[in-house]
């Protein structure tokens, strides 16, 4: 009885979250919904006598795998591929029709299939404890697949390292190269390097642009990031009054 309560609450929630995964726009939201589906599956495992798998599900899936997904999402960033517009015309109706067909087939198949006997339950198999039972199987019947899987894990780790390793095609440019490049391209004004931020003797914060000799602020003295974020402050208030009047007179 408690199991059916759990099932009828968590089951629909899992299916709704999985559907939401398809429908939400942002990949991060998809990842969170998938994490929820995995947690409900962990509940189902524990309810079905698979205590070890339930814990592993939480630790490995919602812990490690989803963490990795979110990590890569942050690394790659969000871009236009998040949009839900279809690129192949008519793909979505076909996919949904096929899905309804496939899902209907599976559901009707499960509905018609019978085990031919009552479901046994795991009380006997779990008599010595679920972890002990799994360990016994793993190190007797399934010892060879277990070893193969360890080889697979090592191969995957090496594969990931090889794939993620980034080799520079051109050597990193040295300070001298950069200096020569500044003289060759660009004007002589930038050859000496960009001006530093701050107004001398008045204000030296990095978000205040330096003042040029004629009293106008120099946006190039502020970090590109601050400029694009719009975090640049107005340095006019730090101008000396004398410069202000002179500039005004010239105009």
């Amino acid at each position, binding site marked *: 009885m408690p199991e059916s309560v759990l099932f009828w609450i968590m089951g629909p929630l899992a299916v709704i979250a999985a559907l939401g995964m398809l429908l939400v726009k942002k990949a991060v939201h998809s990842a969170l919904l998938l994490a929820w589906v995995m947690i409900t599956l962990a509940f189902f495992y524990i309810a079905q006598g698979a205590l070890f798998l339930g814990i592993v599900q939480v630790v490995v899936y919602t812990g490690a795998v989803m963490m990795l997904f979110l990590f890569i999402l942050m690394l790659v960033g969000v871009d236009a591929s998040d949009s839900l517009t279809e690129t192949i015309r008519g793909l979505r109706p076909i996919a949904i029709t096929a899905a309804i067909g496939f899902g209907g087939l599976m559901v009707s198949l499960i509905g018609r299939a019978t085990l031919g006997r009552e479901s046994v339950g795991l009380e006997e198999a779990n008599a010595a404890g679920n972890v002990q039972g799994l360990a016994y199987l793993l190190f007797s019947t399934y010892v060879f697949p277990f070893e193969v899987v360890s080889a697979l894990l090592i191969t*995957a780790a090496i594969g990931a390292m090889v794939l993620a390793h980034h080799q520079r095609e051109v050597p990193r440019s040295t300070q001298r190269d950069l200096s020569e490049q500044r003289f060759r391209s660009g004007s002589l004004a930038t050859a000496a390097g960009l001006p530093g931020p701050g107004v001398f003797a008045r204000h030296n914060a990095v978000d205040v642009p330096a003042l040029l000799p004629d009293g106008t602020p120099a946006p190039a003295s502020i970090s590109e990031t601050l400029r694009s974020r719009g975090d640049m402050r107005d340095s006019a208030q730090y101008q000396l009054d004398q410069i202000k009047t002179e500039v005004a007179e010239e105009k």
Partner: protein
Amino acid sequence: MNPMNYLYVSALLFTIGAVGVVVRRNAIVVFMCIELMLNAVNLSFVTFARMNGNLDGQVVAFFTMVVAACEVVVGLAIIVTIYRSHRSASVDDASLLRR
């Protein structure tokens, strides 16, 4: 409760995952849908283990988890490599072999 109900949930989750692989364009979301399908099948294995009264199904589900973890590690590394060269994580943009 009849364990058959879990199989229905499993079938639904698998179908949703399959649709996601076809419909979504972001390679990472496609990957997450593959994970959903693997998880759905795991639920079936655990349910079958319970119906048959032995733990073999759970061992198979355990192996599936390990293989899925490997698949995620290598797959995400491939996505990062593709992103480095194409500046995009869309599955439609990686079509160099077609041209």
